[in-house]
């Protein structure tokens, strides 16, 4: 089963910064939405979104989890 990595962003209240809060592995975008909502249920989020890690384009660093296409499924 080839799962992709999705990074989860959320903010608690209006006016808050959108912050990276975690990650899920999912077979597709729809499952990623469900997993993110169910997994990161520690707050009553005002807004949450997920993005495929492989779609994050690093700007100034060549290291770390967002570099290259490491997030693509195995």
């Amino acid at each position, binding site marked *: 089963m080839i799962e992709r990595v999705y990074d989860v962003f959320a903010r608690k209240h209006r006016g808050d910064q959108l912050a990276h809060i975690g*990650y899920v*592995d999912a077979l597709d975008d729809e499952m990623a939405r469900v997993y993110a909502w169910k997994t990161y249920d520690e707050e009553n989020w005002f807004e949450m979104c997920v993005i495929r890690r492989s779609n994050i384009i690093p700007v100034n660093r060549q*290291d770390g989890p967002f570099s290259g296409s490491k997030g693509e499924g195995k």
Partner: protein
Amino acid sequence: MVLSNEDELKQKIQDGYIVESREEMTEGYRKALIVQLTVQADTELMSAPAYWMAARHAPSTNTQVSAHAIIQDELAHANIAYRLLEDIGESKEQLVYGRQPHEFKHPYGFDQPLDNWADLVVANGFFDRAGITLLSDVYQNTSYGPLKRALVKVDMEETFHLRHGEVWMRRLAKAGGEAKEIVQCSVDWMFPMTIEWFGLPDDLKRHSGQLDYKLKGLSNDELRQVWMSSTVPLCEELGLNVPAHFDSETEEYVLDYPFPCEYDVADKRWVFEDGETTWDAVFKRWKGRGPMNEIYVESIQRSRRDVGGWLAEKRQA
């Protein structure tokens, strides 16, 4: 920036440097972090089947919901720790689905059956308290940025598990009679089980590098004291006997039984009367794994191949 020198990295870390990526790690740092995260991930993962099989003893639909909410949290925490491992080069697929039951690194306590509602709530009260004790120390001291951020959620939810455990321990203990007797039985096997969880005493501990790399802040004995400083007063307040007391002269909690000690799996009982055993014997018992090890691991792994196979067939069609 690539650091090749272990001592250079250790010095920077002691001066407050936060590591953010695999590329910034030395091999020694990466290995030490892998060990720590594997224990953390496996512990969260194995708590799920242990709690899941115990949840059928829930006395009401509401308590069923609470018990399953805790299981959901534990699985999410495991997912977080395995993802952190992937980001430093390990395979979650291999770790979760590719290992034999005895290869998991969780503590011996999560190889044991939780046989009734009292066992489950004391596990929440004792084991989750141990989890908070260990992870709060990591949160406050870790030099690894991604782990520190991930622990915010984990800590919040573990606090809920602990409250669930302590509220129910209180309810059963205050009721007296059979309710109190059964919670006392759970305390009797789980108190020494959790004490042992914190590992070798400091005077026997091999140097692991976890303190040099600031992957944790407190030693095993210090963490054991922190756990007892919450657990012993709680049990005393509830009139539950625990084999430990506070020594006002040394201002430390002291165990009132031979430590380490042998455990009789069949009777779910610590064999205090045989006196102190060796840590070699304890490691041998841990390595041999406990009675539920294969059942718990099997419950997690069993459908992976089947369902994966169905999906592969569909892709080929």
